[in-house]
């Protein structure tokens, strides 16, 4: 047993260091999360190795021999207090950075622009606020074949909203607040390279924020089981540098240009092509 335990301790460390399976290169400013993770790996790794090796030592040193007898030792107050304090310190060392980073995670910077992700079984759609920088009202009442996002045709703020049925593009280096909405069941918007994610609860709007830090094309996946095609509910997020982003945005259509948005208010339909603030 003892050699096997040593093997487990050493083998686990070796696997950790040598295996090719590790996180994907980060593409957002949530390096803080990675840093907290590394701290956690260190503290827990030390605890694991120390305890497993200690057990292995005990098994060799105190294995039954004929005539041997165990020591009689009901407790040791000092040792127990000491171990409790050390554990407490270890836990505090994990918790403190964790809470600091969480505080960052829940505080959206004031300058963040909004992007809306709308989920339904089993596809993604996206919406940008358009020239006025505000997302128009939406309600599930308005969801229909021509208006899959359920935008309110009466709301002027929604007329210039950019409705995207394809890949979502994000500008490099600018904070975005991702607003999440679902028209049917619970989903979760997850881009592994961004690290951040959040469930999407029908009936409410949830959010998280990030700043993309690397240009590239990333898979977005649903990360909360949402029915039989959950595994196939995938999308793509493209992070563009400024000129590419602007030219992509030029090509997108506003809600007013879509069949559902055409109608009462002609004025808004003449809006010039949107540009992000």
């Amino acid at each position, binding site marked *: 047993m003892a050699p096997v335990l040593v093997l487990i301790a050493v083998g686990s460390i070796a696997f950790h260091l040598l295996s090719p399976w590790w996180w994907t290169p980060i593409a957002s400013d949530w390096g803080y999360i990675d840093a907290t993770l590394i701290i956690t790996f260190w503290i827990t790794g030390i605890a694991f190795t120390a305890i497993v090796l200690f057990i292995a030592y005990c098994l060799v040193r105190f294995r039954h021999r004929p005539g041997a007898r165990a020591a009689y030792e009901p*407790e040791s107050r000092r040792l127990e207090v000491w171990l409790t304090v050390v554990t407490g310190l270890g836990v505090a060392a994990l918790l403190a950075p964790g809470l600091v980073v969480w505080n960052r995670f829940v505080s959206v910077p004031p300058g963040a622009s909004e992007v809306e992700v709308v989920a339904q079984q089993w596809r993604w759609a996206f919406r940008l606020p358009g020239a006025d920088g505000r997302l128009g009202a939406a309600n599930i009442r308005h969801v229909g074949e021509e208006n899959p996002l359920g935008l309110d045709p009466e709301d002027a703020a929604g007329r210039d909203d950019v409705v995207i049925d394809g890949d979502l593009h994000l500008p490099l280096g600018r904070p975005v607040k991702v607003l999440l909405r679902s028209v049917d069941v619970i989903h979760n918007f997850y881009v592994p390279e961004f690290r951040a994610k959040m469930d999407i609860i029908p009936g409410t709007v949830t959010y998280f924020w990030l700043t993309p830090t690397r240009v590239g094309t990333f898979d977005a996946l649903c990360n909360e089981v949402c029915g039989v095609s*959950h595994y196939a509910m995938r999308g793509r997020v493209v992070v563009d540098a400024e000129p590419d982003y602007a030219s992509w945005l030029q090509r997108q259509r506003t809600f007013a240009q879509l069949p559902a948005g055409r109608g009462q208010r002609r004025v808004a339909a003449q809006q010039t092509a949107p540009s992000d603030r």
Partner: protein
Amino acid sequence: MADAQLGTAGPLPGAESEDVELYHPHSWLTKYVFSQDAKIIAIQYASTALAIGLVALVLSWLVRLQLGFPGAISFIGPKEYYQLITMHGMIMVIYLLTALFLGGFGNYLIPLMLGARDMVFPYVNMLSYWIYLLAVLVLVASFFAPGGPTGAGWTLYPPQAILSGTPGQEWGIVLMLLSLILFIIGFTMGGVNYVVTVLQARAPGMTLMRMPLTIWGIFTATILALLAFPALFVGAVMMLLDRLLGTSFFMPAIVEAGQRLRYNGGSPILFQHLFWFFGHPEVYIVALPAFGIVSDLISTHARKNIFGYRMMVWAIVAIGALSFVVWAHHMYVSGMNPYFGFFFATTTLVIAIPTAIKVYNWVLTLWRGDIHLTLPMLFAIAFIVTFLNGGLTGLFLGNVVVDVPLSDTMFVVAHFHMVMGVAPILVIFGGLYHWYPKVTGRMLDERLGQLHFWATFLGAYAIFFPMHYLGLMGVPRRYFDIEGLSFVTPSVATLNAFISVVALLVGAAQIVFLYNLVRSLTHGAPAGPNPWRATTLEWQTPETPPPHGNWGATPPVVYRWAYDYSVPGAAEDFIPQNQPGRAPGPAPA
């Protein structure tokens, strides 16, 4: 819930009654089938749990075949895959682990370890088992219902659980919820019994601080279960009404496939709160009995008293109390008020401290012990290693911000399998190897046991340790197929295939164990009353296996705590709890 309780409260043989006549069953049927003997009920619970557990094992094989060799098994499509993972999870957590620890070990050990003749309400105890069996049958029926069992994931999150996009929407989910409701009713009957028996039927001299930690663990877990299951009950009833009567407890306005459904205004988060208000204590409902049993296994087979008994008791009580204020750590990314994260991360990491103390004390019990590497001891050590591993990865997931990238990935799958799958099951095995001689009078076969142990321990570690790293990479859980994800490297397929092959082998080793269980009934070496030379009362019964009523004419009297091993000056290296006389140990202050 357990209303029948009242109807039968009158004619029960009081535990304090010395009338042994009451314990003579009158026919074969009342002796072996409708038995009111807690030991028979324990065997019935354990056999049923192991049988349904075997189903869960086969389901996990199929899941692993799909993950390791996508498309190789033609009859597993996405629909079947989601049904497989859902039923595997639900069976393992509720119908196997909860039932086996409390219904199985609890029923067998509570009266015997406490020196009681039986549970205080034997009739209710019998009823508890039969309702559990009914719950299992309803669950099994869902496999044969039109549309098959539910594929909503074991967490059964609405709205998807009752919508047509999820397999088993017609019958599966309804039977699942009914089965859970039955299980809870049956469990409540048993649970009331366990609590009252521990409180009132202890032998003279058995103070709380003389109880073996096994009983402390089962007792505390039962109280947790009595207080946690009502939340699941409420959630299940409400979801059933949403599904059958069109109420909108959990169902907001929904457009499904272009159709506006009649639901309006419900709160999916409400279900999650109810589910996890049950779900987190549930982890400790499984873990606390395992903690208790493993303490006794280590102490007995290291011939040394459990180190820091008082601290162990306090830790069990503290963990039990804290487990009710950590539930929302399953919901960090659920869209609940993000400021709850601060509170729940703190409580969750605080619970790590009493848990760590327990690990230290197990390890310190080995220190300067006289370690016999028997099969129960091997399983106990394997438990420490896997529980330590799973507990430490819990520090990743409990620390709110670290959970963000990892939640709902394979990291979570690896974590909870290690901590509440592999670790408690290793304890179950250790417990079965340890108490089988008392239950049957025969030892389990040692060589088959060694084979079973090494295959299970090393195999399980090889399955779940590398799996964490898939999650770290971002491989999501509950994915039928990860084909085409750009961040997943090709080598992941190799690792998945490796894990699947090992999983098949580990599963095969369990068949060896079942064979051993059955074969040793007739072929096992005779065990004698106390093969492990243990101190606790169950090993001191006048007959082995103990008959109904346990103690013959005179029930035992307790003179000492449960851990008088290797007491200096004593002739033997153990002194049974019912042996009178002073311990020659250090004099009291």
